């Protein structure tokens, strides 16, 4: 994942370096001050004092310049990195097949793209700024102490590990605890949401009291762990404070001895105390840095996992193989096809066999979860059949390059999904270079021309993200038109007419039948009425094909079909 940083090599090296420079200048300050005390004040030399203070000012200015440069470079590298990472992630997600997307889930992918990448960005930014600076100041201070006085510097050698143990110890102990704080907070959140969305059920079952008890238990658990973590974290400041002051006391003691034998001046003691104070600040920063960076690393790991997910499907670059003569008329053929989704216990489709000839209309019917959508999603190769083979136009689907296949097969999905833009920009998804006449023809067939004409801007009417400004039926018809614009050989309507009223549904079917050429149409529906005129109807039950034939035949031969039909048309006649 580091390769997205390669464009910002210069920045990622310069940022920490400049930070280090700044730290170096900071480290000189106590020494200069010691000189002022030891030399300037001792010798009553005003000029010396003035010059030294000038140096202090200069150090401050140069330090500021270095630090601003570093901040700029690190911001640039971090932002650039995350921009590249987001691009790569987005590009990668687009190559994933449906099966990987189902496993990961859209909301996960969206979180990866947004908040996880942002976390990585701020982690990287902080890292570039601090990972050299903080240790450098800590050890720099110690080294500076050695230049002042060897014996006094030994105090630093003892104090630094002690401080580190406290700072990092507290951190190591509390980190997992903070995780359980989060878990318990999530539980409180979940219960709150649940009680709000389910208020009617809660009250209908007279569960108000028990819900409050449940909530208070969860809340008490949260408070307990919050207090527990709080008490542990509360130890850090007092402990480090005591250690630092013990170290200062030791410095004073050693200093007093050294001064009395002439090994050190009082200005040196001031400088050493100053260094000691700097160390604490930087250690706390370092501990924070580690927390932030490890959070960012966790996010980076999750992003990496997405990037590592290999697309589960490969498409050949070119169309290969020949079409046997006996299959020239076939549009879609399923040969003993079974499909088991990744991670699912049972197959969603088992042993499906049928052949759809070019120009035919095929109905697919069955209850919820009977496998209707699974069946049609094998045709454009959204998923690969786990057994058997699916053939399009006489060739196995696996022989088609992705673009070829998806150009031949157009799917109108159950959920009408439009994208922000205009009606035109949405329709052009079907084919980038379709003319206005093509668009209107498609709209005409999809029974959408009328309402598009009625819009003030016609084809250029804006469509909000997700098509929120259109009604369900309008969206549905536009998605049908979008599919038609690409002039596919096979059109699949996956329960797409559910938002249409019966009359429009019928008109749509009539218009589709009247289209020139031999368009093969698959209609998935729960309404038997929509399929009555199909050339073949596939009846699915629990993933198995329990009937195949025309309406009239199925009414005779297929009990499941008969049951479905009767559940919808008991109009006036005797019930079973």
């Amino acid at each position, binding site marked *: 994942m580091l390769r997205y940083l390669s464009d910002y090599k210069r920045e990622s090296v310069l940022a920490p370096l400049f930070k280090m420079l700044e730290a170096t200048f900071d480290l000189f300050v106590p020494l200069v001050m010691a000189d002022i005390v030891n030399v300037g004040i001792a010798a009553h030399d005003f000029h010396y004092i003035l010059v030294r203070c000038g140096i202090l000012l200069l150090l401050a200015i140069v330090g500021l310049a270095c630090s601003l440069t570093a901040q700029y470079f690190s911001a640039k590298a971090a932002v*650039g990195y995350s921009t590249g990472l987001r691009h790569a992630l987005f590009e990668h997600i687009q190559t994933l097949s449906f099966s990987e997307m189902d496993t990961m889930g859209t909301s996960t992918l969206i979180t990866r793209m947004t908040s996880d990448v942002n976390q990585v960005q701020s982690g990287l930014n902080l890292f570039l700024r601090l990972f050299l600076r903080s240790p450098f100041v800590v050890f720099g201070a110690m080294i500076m102490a050695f230049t002042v006085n060897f014996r006094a510097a030994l105090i630093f050698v003892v104090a630094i590990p002690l401080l580190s143990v406290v700072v990092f110890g507290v951190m190591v102990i509390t980190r997992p605890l903070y995780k359980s704080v989060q878990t318990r907070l999530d539980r409180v959140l979940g219960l709150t949401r649940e009680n709000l969305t389910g208020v*009617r059920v809660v009250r209908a079952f007279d569960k108000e009291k028990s819900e409050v008890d449940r909530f208070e238990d969860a809340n008490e658990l949260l408070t307990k762990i919050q207090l527990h973590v709080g008490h542990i974290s509360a130890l850090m400041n007092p402990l480090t404070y005591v250690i630092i002051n013990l170290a200062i006391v030791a410095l004073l003691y050693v200093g007093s001895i050294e001064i009395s034998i002439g090994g050190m001046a*009082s200005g040196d003691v001031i400088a050493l105390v100053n260094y000691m104070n700097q160390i604490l600040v930087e250690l706390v920063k370092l501990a924070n840095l580690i927390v932030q960076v490890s959070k960012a690393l966790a996010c980076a790991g999750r992003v990496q996992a997405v990037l590592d997910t290999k697309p589960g499907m490969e498409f050949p670059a070119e169309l290969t193989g020949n079409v046997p003569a006996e299959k020239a008329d076939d549009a879609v053929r399923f040969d003993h096809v079974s499909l088991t989704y990744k991670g699912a216990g049972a197959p969603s489709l088992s042993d499906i066999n049928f052949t759809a000839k070019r120009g035919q209309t095929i109905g697919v019917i069955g209850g919820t979860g009977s496998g209707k959508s699974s069946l049609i999603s094998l045709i454009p190769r959204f998923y690969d059949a786990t057994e058997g083979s699916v053939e399009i136009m006489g060739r196995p689907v696996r022989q088609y390059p992705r673009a070829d296949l998806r150009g031949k097969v157009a799917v109108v999905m159950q959920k009408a999904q439009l994208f922000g833009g205009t009606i035109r920009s949405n329709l052009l998804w079907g084919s980038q270079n379709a003319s206005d006449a093509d668009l209107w023809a498609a709209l005409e067939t999809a029974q959408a021309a009328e309402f598009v004409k009625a819009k003030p801007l016609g084809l250029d009417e804006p469509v909000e993200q997700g098509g929120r400004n259109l009604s369900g039926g309008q969206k549905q018809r536009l998605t049908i038109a979008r599919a038609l614009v690409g002039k596919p050989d096979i059109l699949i309507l996956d329960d797409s007419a559910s938002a249409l009223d019966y009359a429009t549904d019928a008109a749509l079917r009539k218009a589709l039948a009247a289209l020139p050429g031999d368009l093969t149409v698959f209609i998935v529906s729960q309404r038997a009425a929509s399929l009555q005129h199909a050339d073949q109807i596939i009846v699915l039950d629990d993933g198995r094909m329990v009937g195949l034939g025309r309406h009239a035949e199925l009414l005779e031969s297929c009990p499941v079909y008969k049951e479905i039909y009767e559940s919808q048309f008991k109009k006036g006649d005797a019930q079973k």
Partner: protein
Amino acid sequence: MSAKAKSKLTPEQQKATMTRVLQKIKPYGFFVVCSLIVAAVSVAAQLYIPILCGSAIDMMLGKGAVDHAGVLRIIYEIIVVAVVAAFAQWLLSVCNNRITFAVSRDLRNAAMRKIQTLSLSYLDSHPSGDIVSRMVADVDTFADGLLMGFTQLFSGVLTILGTLLFMLQQNVPITLVVVCITPLSLVVASFLAKRSYKYFQSQSTVRGEQTALVNEMIEGQKVVQAFGHEAQSLEAFDEVNGRLQNVSLKAIFFSSMTNPATRFVNNIVYAGVGLVGAIYAVAGGITIGQLSIFLNYANQYTKPFNEISGVVTELQNALACAARVFELLDAEDQTPEAENAAKLVPDGHVQIEDVSFRYLPDRPLIEGLSLDIKPGQRIAIVGPTGCGKTTLINLLMRFYDVNGGSIKVSGTDIRDVTRASLRGSYGMVLQDTWLRAGTVRENIAYGKPDAPLDEVVAAAKAAHADSFIRRLPEGYDTVIAEDGGNISQGQKQLLCIARVMLCLPPMLILDEATSSIDTRTEVRIQAAFARMMQGRTSFIVAHRLSTIREADVILVMKDGHIVEQGDHDTLLAQGGFYAKLYNSQFEGVET
């Protein structure tokens, strides 16, 4: 940087909110007093140590001129003071934690209790996300911000005053140097804050735009791939991504200038103190030890300033959050139960007498509705969306109270009986398939938590849910996620039906109870419903007219009025609104 723009409170509101906050803190008054005392002790001790150090340094004048006994005495003093300061610091955190977490716990519990008694009109008109954020995020911000902010402010002010006092005592001119230059850091910080705020604002706008695009494209990823639109959507993404890069860089850079800039001011103060201090030291106005005290203070003095500037906005923000929490706690409750409310013994006789109802005072919905429902009758309610079907159910369950007229069950006005006994008399299945995060079994047994497994299974079988439950990875012990993501809408509805099947109260309400279930399963469930409804007064709201044909009375509603009433055949024969609705469903069949 919290760029969250919370609505600011007027001074009166702030005062009122503050009063209530104090009430909430009152039970923990002991800890508050402790916290203030230890804060003062800790500040004093922390300021005293540099002075001790200074005196020690003054005892080490040079070679052979060191007062060892004096230094040793001071060393002991420093150790004692440091330990006292550390202990005070620790106590301070402990007290603050106690107050903060206890107050937020109390507020959350109060809010949850409130939710259980809130009127449904409040809950229906407020998005649940808003209430959740009041209960969780606002309570947190309030507790953290107000209590932590308060102690920070308190110790900050004490530190500044203490430092000033100590410094003034030692030397006035050097103090002036510190006092004059330090505010510069505030000026610089606020300048930078304004600049970066602007960029953060535009960053969040562009980020929002990008998130929307990502949402749209990833949610529509299957469509994107089905149409081979990958390249174009990447292009659109890159455009926003590029803009985000530009504005993020500016925002991050400007905000990251604050620390170096304040450090710079700090360094100038340090140099200034060094200069003036050294001059005075040469002149003999102060000792080296005193100079060291000044240098130490100069380093510390800017810190509380920077903190306090942040604390003020945090406090305002916290008060605004507190006000939002109190607003929830003050929201209108449902009408309290009558004092002598009886327990309802339902016989299935429901009388609706001249009922009128409106959600909004200026928009009448149900007017003069009267109905007399005999025990065991089946009432179906049909009509277009928004005609008031669900409203009638709200009234029957007494989720809302009627504005005029009355509803009686077993001859008693439902306002004179306990809500629990009224609601317990109805089994309710709603279109909104609410399940709780928990196992399948827990969900089915929601109304009867101690039901043995075989009863649960029997209920599931009756609801035709048993077969799909068995296919779930853990069967009846499968945990349903909070969003119910692991089972389909139709399956959820089956579980809701099973939940009612288990309790089987004497009356039933089915509001679009089978809307997400395919027609074939529905027919089977209808059979189960039919058994269930035997001898039970039931109210059925449905979209699919085939499901309501067997009702004893069909109420056809339109715009809150009952426009037609009768059984299926009568209504069809009338050729009115119902006949129109019914026939529209079968248009296309006869073509």
